């Protein structure tokens, strides 16, 4: 604080000296924007726990980051769409099917928008859904175990970006295409025929209320623009989903110019309950399709991948009452529904205002047929008829809005690099605070719930520059934490994140911890190759395949000496962790493995395939420091020449 007063004093003196030629002091810099008590607000003492879980998308890492708020400490990276050698995700025989798509094994993707499952519009801490943008998919993470348990591919879709935004009771997670594609015949069309032949799709994936299991119930065939983000209605607007659309110019090349011509693009309002009625009436066409549905079974600790071959498609042009466009300035990104469900606010990246639509006005406009025409057969509601009001001169490049519990919205501004707080009813701007730098999405804990936790807003930044110690040309990604309990937003903390934090969701920690699983029960393990005790450990040869039923417990493998393996064999190490205690994983690694290690959790069985390529004795060992005798947890596999007569032999101890 002393530096500020000195600086101010200096400016004051300088101002006197030049006697009015200098109009004002240079605006304050960041250091002066941090209040004195920020440290104590984010300090979580050793051994104490954070009050909030933050789940950030890993962006182009394809994963999810788990953090504590207010400390900003990272706890875990949950592998979702990308292989993870550290845990064996996508490398072990059990998890490889999770990354299957109609394109075959797909070891990477781009994950954008985490969504917490909810009951009556409030986060319930059971599951976390996230989209894959590149090869369109939606994944479900179980928050009892913090592991990905299901991935469903979305057919007929290019770029699953407006996803997986979910309805207030988990009825549906949605997936709308960012990149429209041609669908007729085999999909082989000239790109220049975009305007006539390219269409978008919106997938409605039903979520089983008990198990969370996903099922692609139907797809809507919609006009060929770019669908960007979405939010489901809630409370009064339950039954609708709202999507932002850009490129209503239908450009197919140099979109940065071509898709920025019209003053207004659209919000697409979808009445999914109406769509369900049409589906029930048999109005859907069955399209041949090919998409993978991958489910991990916790009893067998094994994933299976099924290819599904058809999908019900509803063409919205033939089905009145399902879709309406509302004009929206200009190239909207965020499309956010306030906690009451009444207000829908859109953030046009190139717009000078934030339009706030009223759901009840929209419904009245539909009733009164207050349309200004149609777009590709979908009625366009008059802008003024659905508009509640505009937030004027909010900033540059509005992207995304979340809400507190006091009737305020918090909108991120990429270009002017700030968060602006405004009142949803009055549209009055209340406060603005800089972000470092170029914020994308933001997150208020439970900010899309009916009752948000209006305590913090978290900025998810796109540019980091000088905020951290440099790490060469590639810098860390970062987020920032602001206190929003007072009239003025207060910057508390910068913290680094993995991948690009496109979006994040946060909720009170106890909502999640009540589902906590500490270990898997060995008695419930139904793995095909499980050995539930050391007496069941064995090695079985079936032709060229050698199955090792192995156990691990502090601090040895059974068996830990194996002979009779030959060059060219496929050796499957099925390792069961016999521990039944919290926080005792065992690792498994063997020399020359071309895939990864295994990290086996207590009560779990995991399988590493190993194809020995030469004669010799190969060490194997536990990679996770498990006990005082961890370093002794090791063994050998003897590999003899192909066709040799070395007998199969295995043991632990003499």
């Amino acid at each position, binding site marked *: 604080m002393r530096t500020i007063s000195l600086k101010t004093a200096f400016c004051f003196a300088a101002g006197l000296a030049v006697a009015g030629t200098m109009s004002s002091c240079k605006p304050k810099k960041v250091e002066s924007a941090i209040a004195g008590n920020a440290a104590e607000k984010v300090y979580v003492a050793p051994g104490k726990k954070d009050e909030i879980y933050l789940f950030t998308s890993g962006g182009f890492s394809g994963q999810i980051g788990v953090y504590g708020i207010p400390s900003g400490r990272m706890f875990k990276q949950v592998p979702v769409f990308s292989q993870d050698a550290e845990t064996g995700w996508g490398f072990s025989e059990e998890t490889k099917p999770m990354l299957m798509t109609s394109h075959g094994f797909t070891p990477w993707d781009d994950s954008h928008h985490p969504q917490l499952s909810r009951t009556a519009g409030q986060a319930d801490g059971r599951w976390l859904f996230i989209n894959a943008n590149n090869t369109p998919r939606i994944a479900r993470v179980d928050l009892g175990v913090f592991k990905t348990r299901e991935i469903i591919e979305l057919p007929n879709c290019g770029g699953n970006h407006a996803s997986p935004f979910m309805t207030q009771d988990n009825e549906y997670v949605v997936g709308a295409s960012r990149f429209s594609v041609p669908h007729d015949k085999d999909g082989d069309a000239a790109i220049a025929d975009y305007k006539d032949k390219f269409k978008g799709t919106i997938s409605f994936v039903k979520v089983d209320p008990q198990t969370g299991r996903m099922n692609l119930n139907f797809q809507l065939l919609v006009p060929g623009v770019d669908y960007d983000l979405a939010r489901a209605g809630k409370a009064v607007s339950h039954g609708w989903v709202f999507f932002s659309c850009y490129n209503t110019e239908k450009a197919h090349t140099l979109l940065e110019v071509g898709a920025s011509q019209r003053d207004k693009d659209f919000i697409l309002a979808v009445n999914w309950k109406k769509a369900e009625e049409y589906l029930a009436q048999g109005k859907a066409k069955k399209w041949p399709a090919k998409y993978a549905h991958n489910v991990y079974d916790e009893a067998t600790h094994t994933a299976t991948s099924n290819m599904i071959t058809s999908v019900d498609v509803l063409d919205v042009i033939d089905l009145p009452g399902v879709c309406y466009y509302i004009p929206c300035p200009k190239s909207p990104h965020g499309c956010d529904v306030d906690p009451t469900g009444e207000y829908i606010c859109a953030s046009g990246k190139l717009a000078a205002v934030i339009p706030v639509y009223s759901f009840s006005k929209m419904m009245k406009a539909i009733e009164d047929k207050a349309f200004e025409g149609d777009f590709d057969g979908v009625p366009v509601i008059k802008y003024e008829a659905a508009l509640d009001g505009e937030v004027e001169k909010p900033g540059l490049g509005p992207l995304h809005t979340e809400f507190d519990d006091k009737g305020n919205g918090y909108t991120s501004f990429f270009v002017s690099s700030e968060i602006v707080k405004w009142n949803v009813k009055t549209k009055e701007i209340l406060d603005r605070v800089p972000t470092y730098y170029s914020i994308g999405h933001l997150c208020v804990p439970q900010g899309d719930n009916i009752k948000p936790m209006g305590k913090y807003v978290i900025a998810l930044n796109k540019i980091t520059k000088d905020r951290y110690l440099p790490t060469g040309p590639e810098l860390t990604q970062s987020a920032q934490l602001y206190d929003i309990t007072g009239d003025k937003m207060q910057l508390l903390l910068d913290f680094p994140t993995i991948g690009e934090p496109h979006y994040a969701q946060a909720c009170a920690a106890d909502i999640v911890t009540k589902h906590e699983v500490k270990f898997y029960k060995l008695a419930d393990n139904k793995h095909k190759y499980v050995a539930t005790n050391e007496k069941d450990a064995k090695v079985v040869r079936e032709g060229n395949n050698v199955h090792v039923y192995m156990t691990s*417990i*502090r*601090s040895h493998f059974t068996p830990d000496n194996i002979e009779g393996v030959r060059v060219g064999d496929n050796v499957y190490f099925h390792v069961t962790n016999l*521990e*039944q*205690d919290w926080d005792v994983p065992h690792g498994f690694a063997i020399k020359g493995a071309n895939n990864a290690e295994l990290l086996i959790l207590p009560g779990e069985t995991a399988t590493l395939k190993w194809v020995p390529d030469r004669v010799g004795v190969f060490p194997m060992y536990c990679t996770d420091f498990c*006990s*005082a*005798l961890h370093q*002794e947890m090791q063994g050998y596999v003897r590999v003899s020449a192909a066709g040799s007569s070395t007998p199969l032999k295995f043991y632990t101890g003499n």
Partner: protein
Amino acid sequence: MKKLKIFSRVIVLLCGLAMVPSNYLPVWQIQLEAPQYPEGLKMEIWSSKTAGDVDKINGLNHYIGMAIIEDANFPEFKIMPWLIWAMVALGVLTALIGRRFMLWIFSVYLIVCGVWGVYDFWHWEYEYGHNLDPHAAIKIPGMSYQPPLFGWKVLLNFTAGSFPDIGGWLIIAPAVVVVAILVYEQFIRKRLEK
């Protein structure tokens, strides 16, 4: 033979019945705390079995070569439920018959059971604490791992505590009351009635 006061008979009846739950609740507990186990480990001893974190404790004990704790090793688990049922029966009988000699029988039975129980528990603790596998990974000359009979004791990185559990208290407390009633009936009542 002297007849017991109604008051004494009612109390003895209640004491006998109070012991019924002891066959359905843990009688004794051994607690273990260590830096790596801030939440603690607890072994429960019931009249017919062990319960709680026995598997975890066995897992840890293998480092020092302690024998595996498993119910089949303890013939007591076949007998103890009947010993407790006998306590209940003696309580009820004493109340029904209402004679002082019954109260003597009941009290002596309780004391004998108590002494035997303490000895038997100590004996097993000694057995497990001293009978160690000579090939154990951790061997400390002169070190034994006998848990305390009652109270706390430090064993390497663990602090071990040994205390009655709820079912144990439901035997100990009524037993103390029964003996107190006996003292009253045998010694105090006469003086008061003089």
